[in-house]
């Protein structure tokens, strides 16, 4: 059930004011299914861009991205949207909850795309909120929640439809140390207990230690991969 990700010679450029910016430069990267990866690198090194490409929010110029057994450059339009709904959960730094909906309704959103009854949707959303420890905040609107609680709702939303891959872009960037730690523990549990493949962008070396491995990206190319488990046990 664990889904691996294979990045094969992926190039992505942006043109700005006449000059082209090579954000990802023939990147080669393989990620094993069921592993928790941290993605680090200087600002502008292409971390967010890579995440968006894997999640199918944007297209690579050349190269190939294979998630599980799906070559996502072959998908387009509604096929891609549907694939994303079934296979990928996004978590953002800014939480990105819909302000007009309650916590539970936000979590129910991706479930609208699955063939479920209203009752099933509700139950599944409540289970996801239970998993992130927010059973007592289900009817609250985002602005009635703390930052950490908002991010928990966003995580519940990302896992509600049980996708194999979770892509998180600086999920703890706006949170204080303690709150960040509890969110990171939660991510770790998703990986260990539910075998999710997680790719998490972070600037915080301490946050990266929660991941199994840390991928270092530099100027659109792979720097090196660090194994946190051996590093932790080896010291």
């Amino acid at each position: 059930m664990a889904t691996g990700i294979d990045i094969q010679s992926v190039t992505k450029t942006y043109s700005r004011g006449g000059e082209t910016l090579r954000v990802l430069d023939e990147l080669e990267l393989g990620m094993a299914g069921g592993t928790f990866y941290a993605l680090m690198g200087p600002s502008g090194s292409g971390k967010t861009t890579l995440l968006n490409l894997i999640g199918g929010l944007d297209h690579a110029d050349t190269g190939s991205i294979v998630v599980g057994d799906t070559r996502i450059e072959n998908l387009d339009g509604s096929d891609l949207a549907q694939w994303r709904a079934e296979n990928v959960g996004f978590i953002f730094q800014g939480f990105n909850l819909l302000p007009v909906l309650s916590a539970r309704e936000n979590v129910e959103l991706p479930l609208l795309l699955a063939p479920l009854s209203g009752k099933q949707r509700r139950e599944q959303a409540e289970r996801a909120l239970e998993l992130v420890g927010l059973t007592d905040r289900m009817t609250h609107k985002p602005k009635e929640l703390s930052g950490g609680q908002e991010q928990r709702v966003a995580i519940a939303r990302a896992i509600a439809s049980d996708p194999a891959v979770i892509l998180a872009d600086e999920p703890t960037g706006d949170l204080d140390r303690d709150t960040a730690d509890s969110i990171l523990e939660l991510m770790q549990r998703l990986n260990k207990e539910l075998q999710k493949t997680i790719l998490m962008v972070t600037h915080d070396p301490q946050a990266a230690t929660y991941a199994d491995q840390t991928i270092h990206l530099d100027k659109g190319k792979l720097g090196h991969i660090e194994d946190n488990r051996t590093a932790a046990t080896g010291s």
Partner: protein
Amino acid sequence: MPIRLLIRNMFSHPIRTLLTGLSVTIAVFLLCVLDAAIGGLDAAVSQASRTRLWVQSAVSLFVNLPDSYESKIKNVPGVEEVVRFQWFGGVYQDPSNFFAQFAVDARKWKESYPELEMIEGSLEEWEKARTNCIIGTDLASRFGWKVGDKVPLTGTIFPKSDGSAWDFTVVGIYESKSTSIDQLTMYFHYDYLYESLDTGAAGGPGGVGVFLTRLAEGADAATTIGAIEELYQNGPQRVRATTEGEFQRQFISMLGSVPTLLYSIGGGVLFAIFFAVLNTMLMAARERTRDIGILKSLGFTNGKITLLLVAEALTLCLVGGGIGVVLAILAERPLWSFFSAFIPGFTIQSNVIVQGVLLAAGLGIVAGLMPAIRARRLNPVTALRSEA
């Protein structure tokens, strides 16, 4: 649940939603009322009698013709009867109580108006005294007048020399079977007016405003009009003869260019509201750029997002438009009593109700599709970057 999102979005800016919906209400209401007015005016012209000609001064409706013209017009081939018509312009208590009064030859007048029927009193009763008059059923209900009531009118064109009011007694009430003839007019004896002027009891212009000319059976209107106008081609006063339909049209535009003004302002307002609503909805959708990005990142297809945006705009416009239609139907009666003096056929047709609903639906679809097309092109990555 998408319904819930739709409703929550609408209520997230309650004032804006309310004002936008209200704009659509006003637009649809306006459309219904304008159409009723236009339709009523058309009916007044198209259903006008083909056997009646109106002969007046070529200068203006306010310039009278000499009495002597009556017999000469009557001798024109094709003319069956000539009836004197004089606009009285009296005021009942207050100028705001405006209604039309005409001094006429009672018996000839009745013969020329087969569309009118006495529902109370009778022609015989009317002829019994010169201060007697008959009134339309709408006029009767407007002021609560009954047969036997005395109605004093202050002369404006024909003031009494001693400053007193003219006295009239209501002896009959008529009903109209044609949408081109109103039920809001008072008719009284021409002799009453004429003799008061002769004895000096009242002042004002002599002569006759209009000679209502009835065509003989089989007579051609155009030929007869030509012959009547030919009579006074070289003075002393040239006349203008028109069919009743043409006269109605002229009378309508004489009442200030109110209707024309109504149409152009109304049309302009309708147009302005349309764009204001569109603009507001586009702005509202633009504010939700980030939300659209979120939905896309969750795997919502362009089709689903389009559906959501269109459904939202459509709901708002249909609710607003629906209220507009209901208001128009409720307002038909009071508006009619206001307009019927010059638009007797003022009615809100069922087809304009359909048109109103279609206008609202069209507005909703356009207002929903335009941001949807934008959302379709929107890259979720860029959308998510935009701040809430």
